[in-house]
Each structure stands twice: as structure tokens, then as C-alpha cells.
């Protein structure tokens, strides 16, 4: 399925503490047809996730209070949130940082400065993988 085919039906939870980036990224995603819900910290993201299941989470790692890695670990403790694709958006650039994010439960990793085309590609990959997983487990 292409990005365009996905976008009309995809709900994204964007967890980002930087107000400018939150605004910029959410507007660019909405312009492409995605529905975007915003959370400025991990606590608000977890609260939202306790009630609603989005299609994908874009998770900033450096957040005030609980960081994105800990939030991801907590999300993975909910059985119903195990398949939820989580893409780490982070200023951490090393291979070790990537491994730590993956071990915490992230499905993909995008370093800042963020390139939107890369994020969209990774979102498509994650959503396709989730679809395949669901089909195999029907």
C-alpha cells in the first residue's frame, strides 16, 4: 500500500515537546491527509493511549520528565499496544542510540534534523509490517 493510500485512514500520535517542531510536523502531516493528535510530554501520551489506539506513534526521545524510551517501554507493557508501530524521533545519532531505542520497543528510528520524506517512508514500512503481521495472525 502506498503512502497516499494509507494517509486517509491513519491516526498519528505525535509526541514532541518542542512547540515549533510539533506545529510544523503536524501541519505537514495533516496536509498529506493524516489525522494527527498531539502530546507535549510522555505522561499526556500515555494518558491518551490508555483510552485510544492510534495507528502509529511518532515519539520524541528527549522529553521533559519521563523520556520517550521509558514511555515506549510502558506502552509495550500493555498487551493491546504491542503491535502499535512507534518511530523514535531523536537527536541521538549513534548506532548505540539506535540499538537502545529498538531495545526499548521502537520499530524505527529517525534522527534530527528530521527529513519528512524519511519519516513518511518509515511510517509506510511500519504500517505495512503491521498489516502483514495481522494478516498472518488471523
Amino acid at each position, binding site marked *: 500500500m502506498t503512502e497516499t493510500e494509507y494517509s486517509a485512514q491513519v491516526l498519528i500520535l505525535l509526541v514532541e515537546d*518542542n512547540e*515549533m*517542531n510539533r506545529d*510544523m*510536523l503536524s*501541519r*505537514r502531516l495533516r*496536509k498529506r491527509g493524516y489525522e494527527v493528535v498531539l502530546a507535549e510530554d510522555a505522561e499526556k501520551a500515555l494518558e491518551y493511549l490508555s483510552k485510544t489506539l492510534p495507528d502509529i506513534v511518532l515519539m520524541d*526521545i*528527549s522529553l521533559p520528565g519521563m*523520556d520517550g524510551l521509558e514511555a515506549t517501554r510502558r506502552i509495550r507493557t500493555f498487551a493491546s499496544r504491542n503491535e502499535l508501530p512507534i518511530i523514535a524521533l*531523536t*537527536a*541521538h*545519532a*549513534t548506532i*548505540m*542510540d539506535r540499538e537502545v531505542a529498538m531495545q526499548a520497543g521502537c520499530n524505527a528510528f529517525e*534522527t*534530527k*534534523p*528530521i527529513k*519528512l520524506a524519511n519519516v513518511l517512508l518509515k511510517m509506510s514500512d511500519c504500517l505495512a509490517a503491521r498489516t502483514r503481521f495481522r494478516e498472518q495472525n488471523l
Partner: protein
Amino acid sequence: MTPQGQWKSCRQQISRLLQKIHARTWSLRKIMKSAKREAYLPDLFRVVEALEKLKNQMGDRTLSGQQNKASQSQIVRDDYVILRDQGHDLRNTVTALHGFAELIGEEITENDEAVLLPPIQELITLTGRLEQAVESYVRQLMEEQETVAPDEAPVATVGKTGRQESRKKTEKDLH
């Protein structure tokens, strides 16, 4: 070229790009006003704000390339400060800067505002180059931390070598 020479070159490149972007942003603002396209101005102001923030974060001393008289340890300390205190904000700001420039570009294209397209495309190109320059600079500094002598590292070392500790701190503090 020595690592110090490369850093200086990177800083000068970033400084030149910031000055160019600043000038282009203000001329674009004038074009938008004269063309009565005020709808784009709030986003353009955000680009300007992000740019000012970036310039302040990097600091004139760090970016001016006037570190010729500074000692090697002073240069290393300055570069540690960038990584430790400003790395995260810097990357966020560059992301916002380039993102807003692209966002304005998308809207101008959608609305068929041909007169505004060349200057905004130039801004997108410049902010993209700034993004690459900052990435290159940060990557070089990170690589260099692995070879910094323990007595030059400004981080207290207890139970670890200066190299191990400084590497750990560099990675951790890039958040």
C-alpha cells in the same frame, strides 16, 4: 586538514549560511509584503525566530572563527559545550527552520504563487545546506571526542578513563 582546521571550516560554513539565510528571509518577507501575501508571514516569522534562536545558541564567539588565539583545550571545551548544552536544541531548531521553509514552499506551490517560488526555493536550499553543515560538524566533534586526551577532557572522571567518560557524556548529552 587537522581536526581543528575542519572544525573551524565547519563553523565558518555554518556562520556564512546563517548570515545568508537571515538576509534571504528578510528579503523574502519584503517580497511577501509588497505582493500582499501576508498569509505566509506568520510562518516566515517563525523561520526568523528559529534563525535568531539558532544564532544565539551557537554564539558569536563559537561561530565567528575567531578561535585562532584560543588554546587547544579551550577549543575542545567550547565544542564540548555545544554538544553538551546545545546539541538537542540545535537539532530541533534546524529541523524547525528547514521544515517551515518547506511548509511555506508547499503552500506557495499549491496556491500557484509563482513570484514567491524562487526566493522560497532558495531558502529551502540554504536551510538544507545548513542542516547538512550542522550534521557534519556534530559528527566530526563526536568522532573527535574518542581521541581527546584525558587531561583535555573537561569532564570529571571517576573510575573511568577520560576517554571513556567523555565519550559516554558526549553521547548522553546529545539529547
